[in-house]
């Protein structure tokens, strides 16, 4: 069995009675650890990328653009510029003599080719080292072409993914406040931190529509530049995936006096709580009534099938590991709806508060992990006899190799997991994986599959 890296001992809480709960987090990964984390650029890119009528130009060598080319499944109902891959493809001579001229030329060609609503320019590691003045180039091109050209300072080494979220928020605040906000009704909000993976923003928007709330801007799922310009006209910011959007929500509160609430759209409880909270903040008794009947209708529609899965899944054990910590809370609750127990939970970027909340939410002996690695994941899958791993692309093979079911709750989820129908989809996915007959051929795993 592989030991925990000694530098990481305070980032693992094993849920033992004799262990003091003091999670150390927000730490830079120890060099040499096989971390599941990515970089600043990755954080900015995932947040801004769903804005579909802007071009997203990666200023650096080709790799950063190639690896992030259309990998997230953030859907658009209209333009799909965001799904193309644009790069300045920096070469050795650009590194030596600077990439500003090339950036200028590429931007000009790009804008002339696609006529986008705006352009985001992402700085990568190398730009931070060779010292290109991206801001100046963006200003020049913006002036010449008459569109917003926004630099995103996302040099990979300048922190963690979280710093990338912040850089993205800074970029967004450059365009928020530049649109006309006349005619926006009282009951209006911005959806923040949902990225329309598998069409989830659409699902959420449909609920808001049904209760009578107007969505001014979705930041950034199925996002449009002109909508984001008007975001300051909304009465409320509703923030999901708090890790990525909290700084923007806070700055909009200071600047435009728009309050914000933190919500999650995953699971029956959290989804309903979000709708009720919005109705309370923005609506009258009639809206509250509409919300009530929506919740009742939706829950009634999905419960019979969910109850069936619950009979199959009762007692199954899950390990949940995600990018942001907020999603973990919802997943713990959703799994409870299915009769399952979260025995290990963790995130790449959770903070102290998140882990305290997680500790309060989970069972006494639930193991908590910050910035973990494949070795630790495998260790706890086995020690805690896990039946289901919820994670992303790098975690999937870890689960399968140990004969454990898997649910992608990250970029590669192909079905909508948000909202009520999303909860049903989630239940189906969990059931189909945990109870798959393939695991019956694993000597260690036969509880739920009725195998040998």
């Amino acid at each position, binding site marked *: 069995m*592989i030991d925990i*890296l000694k*530098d990481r001992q305070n980032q693992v809480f094993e849920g033992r009675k004799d262990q003091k709960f003091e999670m150390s987090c927000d730490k*830079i*990964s120890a*060099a*040499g*650890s*096989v*971390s599941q*984390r*990515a*970089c600043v650029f*990755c954080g900015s890119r995932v947040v801004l990328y769903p804005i579909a009528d802007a071009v997203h130009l990666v200023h*650096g*060598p*080709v*790799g*950063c*653009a*190639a*690896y*992030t*080319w259309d990998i997230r499944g953030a859907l658009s109902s209209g333009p*799909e*510029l965001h*799904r*193309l*891959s*644009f*790069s*300045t*493809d920096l070469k*050795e001579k650009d*590194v030596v003599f600077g990439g500003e001229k*090339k950036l200028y*030329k*590429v931007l000009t*060609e*790009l804008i002339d*080719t*696609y006529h986008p609503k705006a352009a985001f320019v992402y700085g990568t*590691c*190398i730009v931070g*080292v*060779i010292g290109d003045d991206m801001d100046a180039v963006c200003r020049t091109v913006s002036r010449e072409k008459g569109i917003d050209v926004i630099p995103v300072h996302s040099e*990979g*080494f*300048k*922190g963690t993914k979280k710093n990338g979220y912040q850089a993205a928020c800074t970029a967004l605040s450059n365009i928020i406040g530049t649109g006309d906000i006349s005619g926006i009704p009282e009951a209006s909000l911005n959806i923040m931190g949902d990225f329309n993976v598998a069409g989830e923003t659409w699902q959420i928007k449909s609920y808001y529509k049904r209760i009578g709330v107007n969505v001014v801007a979705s930041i950034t799922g199925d996002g449009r530049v002109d909508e984001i310009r008007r975001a300051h006209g909304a009465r409320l910011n509703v923030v999901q995936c708090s890790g990525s959007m909290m700084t923007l929500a806070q700055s909009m509160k200071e600047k435009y006096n728009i309050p914000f609430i933190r919500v999650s759209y995953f699971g029956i409880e959290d989804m309903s709580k979000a709708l009720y909270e919005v109705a309370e903040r923005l609506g009258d008794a009639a809206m509250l009534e509409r919300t009530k009947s929506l919740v009742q209708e939706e829950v009634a529609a999905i419960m019979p099938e969910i109850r069936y899965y619950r009979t199959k899944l009762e007692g199954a054990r899950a390990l949940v590991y995600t990018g942001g910590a907020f999603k973990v809370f919802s997943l713990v609750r959703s799994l409870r709806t299915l009769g399952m127990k979260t025995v290990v939970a963790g995130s790449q970027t959770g903070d102290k508060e998140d882990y305290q909340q997680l500790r309060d939410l989970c069972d006494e002996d639930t193991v908590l992990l910050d910035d973990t690695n*494949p*070795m630790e994941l*495998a260790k706890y899958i086995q020690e805690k006899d896990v039946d289901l791993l919820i994670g992303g*692309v*790098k975690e*999937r*093979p870890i689960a399968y*190799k140990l004969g454990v079911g898997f649910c992608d709750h990250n970029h590669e989820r192909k079905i909508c997991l948000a909202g009520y129908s999303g909860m049903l989809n989630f239940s189906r996915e969990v059931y189909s994986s945990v109870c798959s007959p393939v695991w019956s051929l*694993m*000597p260690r795993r036969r509880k739920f599959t009725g195998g040998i």
Partner: protein
Amino acid sequence: MLLRHTKPEIKERQVLTINPAKTCQPIGAMYASLGIHNCLPHSHGSQGCCAYHRSTLTRHYKEQVLSGTSSFTEGAAVFGGQSNLVQAIDNIFTVYNPDIIAVHTTCLSETIGDDIPQIIGKAKEEGKIPPGKIVIHTNTPSYAGSHVTGFSNMVASMVSYLSEPGEKRASRANIIPGWVDPADIREIKRLLDMMDIDNIMFPDTSGVLDTPLTGKQEYFPAGGTTIQALRATGKSKITIALGPTSSLAAARLLDTKCKVPYEILDLPIGLEATDAFVDTLRRNFHTDVPDEINGERGRLLNMISNMHQYTYNKRVALWGDPDQLVALTQFLVLLNMKPVYIVTGTPGNNFTDRINTVLKGTVPEVKVLQGQGADMYKMHQWIKQEGVDLLIGNTYGKYIARDENTPFIRAGFPILDRVGHQYFPIVGYKGAMRLCEMILNAFLDKKDRECPEESFELVM
């Protein structure tokens, strides 16, 4: 249409790259390193590089991919990555305990000028490298070459660090398979076994990135070329390097360093390239080609003869890495098809010459593009100007396939959306048969789906 913005009129772009037909060096080095037994690749740069490479490799191979990272911070970018790498080496040997760490650089560490051999020396001095353990490195600046260059560089580094010259030569071949999938390596080994030729295959990702499901977690799976074998490459009789772009550098170095002569061949994709491979083995090891191999070749020929009317004159667009493209093009010519558009983002000498050689003048209208501006956008523009009957390449062609309603078979790296390449080869006679099957079925499926009811046929 996802690519609705692609315009058929070609306006020369000076600098803009749209939808690249390549990626950066480090991922190739990471892939090559995984072909060493008990090796942990290490990415000397920011965390993101490592995460992206691992994710991309996992999406292609559906396997866990482990690699360390130096986790660069601002401090490292200013003061250099020495302390990060020394600490990483210490942590990796303490916790993960591989036999060898294979370090590759990134654009960041290259630009700040980290001297990796010096840092490895320092780690050794400070006792961070336990006795018997090894650290090797290669330079993979992302702003030069492509993923294929990174692969080639790491394979060459295996030679420069590990190959040992010797007086006595074993009757044995070094086989450098090039950037192919584990299933391809298995197929090459099977041919070698059938010909009873002792060999050292390096790098060898079979058994590393195509491991069976056992219910156990293997950090370092059973596959991969052992360090002992890598050392012994200097005492082999000959090196057979497959695919010059990815394998020539290592073969040459082995010749210079250990005086092992080499022969450079195309990747054994298709009938003629496999012939060349089998014949090279036969010549060098004075052996006969066994009946079984002749039988496989005969069955491939039989298959080609059965399908030749369907493939005649079909226009094909293909993209990807130079070594694959040259061999595929040669095979398509044998199938009497017309490879009309060929694109690679990987720079390098004489690609166009190699393509023209295998085309033998059969496709005068061919368009070949490499390097700057050689991207999927340009490929799509060409197709818009004059369509093709078939697309062959990595997953990134799927947008064009859908927009233009063109049959598409996946070959190359990465394949992110289909199964098959993880388990079935495209090299050797059997691999060529698999290609034939994919090509023919792609045509017939389209016909069945789209032909008018009255011409829908049971027997085809």
